[in-house]
């Protein structure tokens, strides 16, 4: 459980819903992550410039700058590797998912999700040790 904490993993949760950010924060902190929050893509870009997170958990539909615009801007500014980006959205069609992957997202979670789904994906991204 503390695998992420020992490594000091840091996640930026980007979502315009305060309730959603809170829920994600609770799950991520439970897995040992340090969590920062941003309520739109523009604020998320600023947060990445301040300190590069290991992971951005990224909602799609947000005011000011949406998730995909953030993703493209972050890739243009910081390259393909960092930060790792995992979409976390109600958008669930193959077309939308492919769009995000082609824009450089590493993973994708369809809402609603639970801690098991989140932990499994984090382990696959190498951000958590497998709970073996």
């Amino acid at each position: 459980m503390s695998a992420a904490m020992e490594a000091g993993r840091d996640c930026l949760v980007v979502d315009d819903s305060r309730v959603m950010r809170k829920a994600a924060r609770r799950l991520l902190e439970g897995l040992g992550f340090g969590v920062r929050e941003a309520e739109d893509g523009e604020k998320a870009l600023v947060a990445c410039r301040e300190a590069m997170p290991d992971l951005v958990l990224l909602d799609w539909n947000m005011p000011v700058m949406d998730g995909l615009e953030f993703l493209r801007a972050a890739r243009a500014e910081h390259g393909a590797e960092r930060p790792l980006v995992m979409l976390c959205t109600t958008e669930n069609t193959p077309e939308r998912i492919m769009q995000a992957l082609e824009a450089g997202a590493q993973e994708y979670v369809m809402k609603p999700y639970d801690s098991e789904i989140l932990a499994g994906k984090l382990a696959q991204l190498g951000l958590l040790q497998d709970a073996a």
Partner: protein
Amino acid sequence: MTEPGFAEIAALVRRRAGIVLTEDKSYLLETRLGPVLQRFGLASLRVLGERLRAAPGEAMERAVVEALTTHESSFFRDGRPFEHLRALLPRLAARKAPGERVRVWSAACSTGQEPYSIAMLAHETLGAGAARAVEILGTDISGEVLARAREAAFSQFEVQRGLPIRALMTHFAQEGARWRLKPELRGIVRFEERNLMADCGALGRFDVIFCRNVLIYFDSPTKTRVMEMLARMLAPEGVLYLGAAETVVGLTTRLAPLPGERGVYGVSAQRAAA
């Protein structure tokens, strides 16, 4: 305190499925057996227990066993065996004569996530030739879960358990609210209803057997019996994957862990030589 009906239900599940239902699991009875009570018009677990003692009938016994033996599953569960198989599968395939297939058995496959994970892995390692190189058999004691497995259609929740998003995009198509495995992978996997307590020898020899997180529910004599059957059904250089919490130690000498591996077993050297 023992739930009313618990003794009868536990006796039935032990007799038919070899599963030891301990009292600390009695909380499961109500949630799992609710639909069974409804289906047979029974008011409570106590009434079910009485019926099982008096005049059970095949349909009712079956329904109870199925309700208590099905488990939630996920894709690529516990990762490690699949990483091992990823390296092993091309070697097994290369050793086969033309027209011969690598035979894989997923014992107690529930709703199909395990055999379909193996099918995805076969497709990734062997390419489009996977269907000619590998055959995968999934068996389970429950006809109900096998019906679901054959459909190969999973909820949004289910396809997010263990399955990387790229695998979902490559191997599944969205059908309404569900995601269905593509036909070319469904075609590699076949399903049959089997009880591991019975002799499964007629299924033939296998190069790879997955039997994970099943034996933990059996008592020791049953564990030994099942493991010795698996050993007989394993090809001389085949491998058996057990669950992370399972071992052969003290149960059989016919199977031995592969050196340096955890949860991976082969037929014991002395037995292979015999």
